[in-house]
């Protein structure tokens, strides 16, 4: 997995509550069997004026000029500012894949939906929870200042604004450790293979009906 240590970059707005993963990456694009290439279709129905198709070249498509990510001032943004309950709805991991592929490294919001929050960490994308008041302050400062950049330091757990103001955020120790070092979850879990086997043996004795019912050819 891609590691995350420090990121400094332009902040861009997604200024509405309850942004769902259908909005982040519409279902037409879930037919891909790859993990990459979703960035051009991030927020597809908001970003373009026509209906997008999978595998389509998006360069000639009509842009929605009112959608902030199409504003030149937010070009190359790495930090997405968002509102409450970001990433709700479908469990599609294509949502963090699309945000990552577009170039975002972190999302700052007052709250996230559970599955999206979890999926983001698996892809080196950092979801940061700050209070609604602080997020609102960042939105105002970003709107007022073209080229507004935020710096994020994961080891120190702080977000720094251009004026030098800092806001600290909470993060799970285990998730922080994995992100900082770009660790593969599966490899870590397999270190516990003995514990898993021991549990499994005990479980099989207690509840044998949970094992072996589904067999090929049955």
């Amino acid at each position, binding site marked *: 997995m891609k590691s995350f240590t420090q990121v400094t970059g332009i902040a861009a707005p997604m200024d509405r509550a*309850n942004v769902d993963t259908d909005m982040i990456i519409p279902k037409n694009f879930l037919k891909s069997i790859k993990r990459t290439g979703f960035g051009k279709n991030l927020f597809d129905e908001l970003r373009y004026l026509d209906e997008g198709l999978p595998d389509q070249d998006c360069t000639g498509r009509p842009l929605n000029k009112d959608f902030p990510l199409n504003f030149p001032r937010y070009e190359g943004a790495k930090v997405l500012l968002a509102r409450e309950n970001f990433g709700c709805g479908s469990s599609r991991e294509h949502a963090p894949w699309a945000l990552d592929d577009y170039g975002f490294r972190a999302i700052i919001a007052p709250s996230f939906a559970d599955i999206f929050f979890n*999926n983001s960490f698996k892809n080196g994308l950092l979801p940061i929870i700050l209070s609604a008041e602080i997020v609102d302050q960042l939105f105002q400062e970003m709107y007022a200042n073209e080229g507004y950049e935020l710096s994020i330091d994961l080891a120190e757990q702080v977000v720094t604004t251009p004026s030098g103001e800092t806001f600290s955020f909470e993060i799970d120790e285990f998730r922080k450790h994995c992100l900082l070092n770009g660790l593969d979850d599966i490899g870590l879990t397999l270190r516990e293979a003995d514990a898993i086997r021991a549990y499994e043996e005990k479980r099989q004795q207690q509840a044998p009906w949970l094992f072996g019912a589904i067999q090929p050819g049955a």
Partner: protein
Amino acid sequence: MAGKTLYDKLWDAHLVKERDDGSALIYIDRHIIHEVTTPQAFEGLRLAGRKPWRVDSILATPDHNVPTTAVERASGVQGIEDPVSRIQVQTLDDNCDEFGIVEFKINDNRQGIVHVIGPESGACLPGMTIVCGDSHTATNGALGALAHGIGTSEVEHVMATQCLVAKKMKNLLIKVDGELAPGVTPKDVVLAIIANIGTAGGTGYAMEFGGQVFRDMSMEGRMTVCNMAIEAGARAGMVAVDDTTIDYVKGRTYAPNEEQWDAAVANWKELVSDVDAEFDKVVEIDGASIKPQVSWGTSPEMVLPVDARVPDPAQEADPVKKTGIERALQYMGLTAGQNITDIAVDRVFIGSCTNSRIEDIRAAAAVAKGRQVASSVIQAMVVPGSGQVKAQAEAEGLDKILVAAGFEWREPGCSMCLAMNADKLGNGEHCASTSNRNFEGRQGYGGRTHLVSPAMAAAAAVAGHFIDVRDLTSQA
């Protein structure tokens, strides 16, 4: 010391290892997979030279992409017209064949929507931990199981290790007591719950549905309710085990055999929250006050009783919510203060993992019987949740009733719930839909979804606009 909640018991029974930082390894008993969220996981396994830890824990079926017309289904995978969908379904077949995973393939009569076939086949049982790369996995919590959706990286993780890295959630009890009014269904109950607590109300919680209303509810009704726990923000929803649960499970293909049955039942009877269990949050709702519900906006919390009027943003003080209402009204093409019953319906969709089981089809057919789909309705379709549901409905003659009334009778799949196949709304069309999400564009580009129960959807099809199904049936 306080007693344990149902969720506490399920969690404790599956704890493999607790880490110092509060995260834990949880053992997964059942893994259901479909074509959309697994190709990248299988690819990950191959790249790392790994194999599934326990193949017999996995059951696969294609559902999201499969066509639902008999013609397009006739030649199986090769007959899928959309080449991108065809590759995805074919990839699932190939992966299952390669790793020896049991799959109900496209034209197997056991194929269907993942969350319908799991309980129906007995693959999903009380007391299990159940995961699937699909947020509506919570459906299985109706069995008294810990079931929730996971992302593709976690699909790969569970396949490789049989475990999930998890953190214990908080306990939320949704208590609905009293008796439901006639004509009010489980779908109305869950929509009313979401309207009450909001789409983030359950975030961070495991949600147990308790109270008389759920005790009286059928298993299929409980599945409809648990299915939409995620629409209230909760990854997992669940209902305690009782005789209804055990009667439902008995005799299903993958259920415990006779030899194991008594031990299994004794084990399952423990799967209730202790009377002295403490929940972190309790929400109480009066069941008798719930009316048939219709969603008017673009979030599942934007729901009102059918006799209400569309809200007026001018009455909303919170600026973020106010813009939300304005944007939703604009997208939905509705006017503030408009009667819900004045919203005309262009298409009707009865199906999805929320409402495609036999009781749902019966409810729709009961309303459709002897009536006709209004001429202003372009299309009204009924998509059974599985081959088994379809066969049962046909054995009861429900398909004939529906077709005589002007409904289309389709092959099983997710269909217009998320429109990954050819079944979708046109731009600007209003749909009375028994599915679970009314997000912008969910059922088709520019499509406008109104979430309702199967009976309310059938009533809207007949009337051409939303109507309290009880007003329609009392006219007869």
